[in-house]
């Protein structure tokens, strides 16, 4: 491999730190070879005239970039959940309180199991299920159960300590992140909810 290595001085030439004249005579040929290498660099500017239209076409159908899950709770826009304002507070209270209640002792070891209750208020939905990293994102595997006319859907799962992502699937087709949980970009233009146990 050493026969392919440029002499350190020639590397300085390549870096532009010294000139060809500064090289000792025995390195001149190698120096010229190095400069020929650099002369072959293609610095032609590249123009991408067509992409503006393509980019704008692609983003036309994407949701607007928005970060805060709190904004979503106040103005839910993408799902027909029709969460009426007076229902919001109890829904949050349910979600938040249950997570706290079911929280394990602070020294939960990895590999321990934790019981978590998932809740979604969706009075107009006909079916709601839960899909996530814990059930291979199978939209049919974990249906939630509706309790009466108020439209509170619930499921209780036992999960391993660690990191999980999930979303609710409403009426089999609409993927909805949990309004009461932090959300991250799923890489497909939607958001997943995060559960850190």
């Amino acid at each position: 491999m050493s026969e392919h290595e440029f002499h350190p001085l020639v590397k300085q030439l390549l870096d532009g730190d010294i000139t060809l004249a500064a090289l000792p005579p025995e390195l001149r040929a190698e120096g010229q070879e190095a400069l020929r290498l650099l002369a072959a660099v293609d610095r032609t500017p590249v123009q991408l005239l067509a992409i503006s239209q393509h980019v704008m076409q692609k983003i036309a159908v994407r949701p607007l970039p928005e970060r805060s899950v709190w904004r979503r709770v106040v103005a839910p826009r993408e799902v027909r959940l029709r969460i009426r304002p007076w229902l919001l507070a109890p829904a949050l209270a349910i979600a938040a309180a249950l997570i706290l209640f079911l929280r394990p002792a602070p020294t939960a070891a990895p590999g321990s199991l934790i019981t978590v209750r998932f809740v979604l208020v969706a009075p107009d939905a006909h079916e709601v299920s839960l899909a996530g990293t814990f059930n291979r994102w199978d939209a049919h595997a974990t249906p939630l159960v509706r309790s009466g006319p108020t439209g509170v859907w619930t499921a209780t799962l036992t999960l391993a300590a660690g990191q999980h992502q999930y979303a609710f699937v409403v009426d089999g087709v609409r993927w909805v992140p949990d309004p009461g949980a932090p959300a991250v970009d799923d890489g497909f233009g939607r958001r997943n909810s995060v559960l850190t146990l």
Partner: protein
Amino acid sequence: MIATLLVIPLTLLGMQQQDSIAARLAGRVTPDVATLVQQLSVAASARGLPVDPLIQKAIEGSAKGVPAERVATAVRWVAMQLDTAAAALREGGVVTDTLVIAAGEFAISAGLSNHDITALARTGASVAALTVGLRVAGTLAAMGVPSAENIGLISTKLRSGRPPGDLLLVPADVQSEIARGVTPAQAAAGLERAAAAQARHGPPPGRDNPPPHPPAPPHP
């Protein structure tokens, strides 16, 4: 020479592991996506990166009915974020394992930068604690806590030497503060001040982490 380079990664990922990857993907993703995931898994495994996030993302995209090409892009993106996380962790002096790299990848997907990852790594926390710290930091980012306050709070917690399980309480604490009306940034900054004070002076009198009381169920 190129032939030798191709042979080495395949032997690093045992046949058994390749079979189990194929089994997890079978029937859940298109053959093209499965092949891509297998290839990326070989390369990832050779670099000490976890393979699970790649498989999860492929299955997720397919389950959501996303076109195969887009699933492939997303899986490549996860692979790239795994590399970024691993590099950021090593930059911070961590001897990485697959769990901490996966946690770093999650943090990046939640919006943290490689600098944020390195900053947390430089707290010198154990790999186990850092893994939890990264998951929690990613969760806080997803809750809208800006990076500076986020990393500040998690770094303080990691340096306090308390058990990693304490970190798991942080998102709920931040959530409670926000419910009282402060911004996510203010919530995190306030908790950091409290944690720093506790580290200096010990816990405030009368508070010794009582178990939370279940509140009365709300009346719909």
